[in-house]
C-alpha cells in the first residue's frame, strides 16, 4: 500500500474521534443542567472550584 493519508484527512479523523466521544457521552450522561452551571469566572464567584486536575488523585 503506498497511498499517503493527507493532513486534512487525519485531522478530520481526530475531530471525528472527539465528536464520537462527545456523542457517546451525551447519550449516556445526558446534557448538562444549565441551572447548576457555574458562573463565568471562578475568580470572584465566591465558590470553590469543583473541577478535576491531573495533579489530583
Amino acid at each position: 500500500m503506498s497511498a499517503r493519508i493527507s493532513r486534512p484527512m487525519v485531522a478530520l479523523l481526530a475531530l471525528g474521534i472527539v465528536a464520537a466521544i462527545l456523542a457517546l457521552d451525551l447519550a449516556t450522561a445526558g446534557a448538562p443542567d444549565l441551572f447548576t452551571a457555574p458562573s463565568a469566572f471562578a475568580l470572584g464567584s465566591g465558590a470553590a472550584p469543583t473541577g478535576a486536575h491531573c495533579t489530583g488523585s
Partner: protein
Amino acid sequence: MFLRRASVLLIALGFTLFAFVMAGPRAGLLVMVGLGFGLVLEGLRFGFAGPWRMIVTDRDGRGLIAQLIAIALVAAVAFPLLAANPGELVPAHAPVGIAMILGAFVFGAMMQLVMGCGSGTLVNAGSGNLVGLIALAGFIGGSFAGSLHLGWWTGLGALPVLSLQGMLGAQLGLIVTLAGLALVAAVTVARAAPGKRMPPRRLWIAALLIAALALANLVIAGQPWGIVYGLGLWGAKIAQAGGMDLGATAFWAAEGNAARLSSSILTDVTSLTNIGLLIGAFAVMRWRAEPGAQTQPLTPASYGAVLGAALILGYSARMAFGCNVGAFFSGISTGSLHGWVWLVAAFAGSMLGIKLRPVLLRPASVKGAFA
C-alpha cells in the same frame, strides 16, 4: 480557499457556541481558551518535547528558554492571585513520590518517541499528523489505564504534598521559583550554541500569549491548565459505555472523579480546553494555503511502537500527576515542588527517548509506505 476558511471558522465558533448553550458561559470561555492554546502552539510553533530534544541534539536552547519565560510570567501573577483567593482558586500541587519520579522519567522518554507531549499530542493530531492521531488514541487509553492503578503506585511511597508557598510563604516562594527558572535558563544558555540562545520574536510572542491563556484558564476555571485528566476521563467514558463497572475502582469511585464520570464532558474543565486546543490546531492547519506534507512514513512495526509508546505515555502521565502541562508548566508556575522534580526526572527520560527514537522509529521504504 474562502469556503475552507469559512468552514474552519464555523467549526471553531460553532463548538464554542455549542458549549456555551449546553453547559453555560464558563464552558464557552474555556473552549475559547483552548482554541487560543491551539492557535498559539500550532501557529507560532511553540512546543515542549521538540525544544527538549533540540537543546540536547542541536544545542538549540531558544524553545526551552521560551518555555521558562512563559512559566515565569504565569508564576509572577499566579502566586499572588492564589494567595489572595484561596477559596476560589486552587494550585496544581501534588506529592513527590517514587512512582511520580518513575512516571515522569518514563513520560520524558515516551514523549520523544511519539514526537509530542500532552499538549503536543493534541496539537499534532489536530493539525493532521498521523503519528499524533495514533498517539492520541494511545494516550487516551493509557491515561485511563493509569488511573486504575494510581493507588497502587502512590502506595509505593510518597512525601506529603509540598509547595514553595507552604514552606516559604507566597512572596519568598515566588522569588525562589523565579530564581530556579533563572538557574535553568542559565544552564540552558551555557549549553546552547552561539546564535541559539535568545528566542526569536515569534517565540517571545508565543510565550506571552501562552502565559496569558494559562492565567485566563486559572481565573475562569479556578484551577491551572491541564491535559491528562480530560483524556483519562474520555477513556473512562468509553470503558463505562462498554460495560465496565468503574464504581468498583478506587480512582473513579472517589467523590470528585465519580461526579465527573456521571456528568457531561462539557462540564469538565480539561476536556473543554483539550477539545478547544485540538480545534485550534486544526484551524491553523486548514487556514494555511498549503496544509503541509504528512509525516515521514514509518514501517508498520514503528507505528506499533508509536501506539505502545503513547499508551505508556498516558499511563506514566497519571503516575507522574500530570504531563508537561499539568506537572511541569502548571506545577512549577503555581509553586508545586513536584513540578521541579518532574522537570529533572522527565528531562533525564527525554535524553533516553532521544537515543531510543532512531532505534524504534524506522522510516518505511517508499514501496512499503502506508502513511
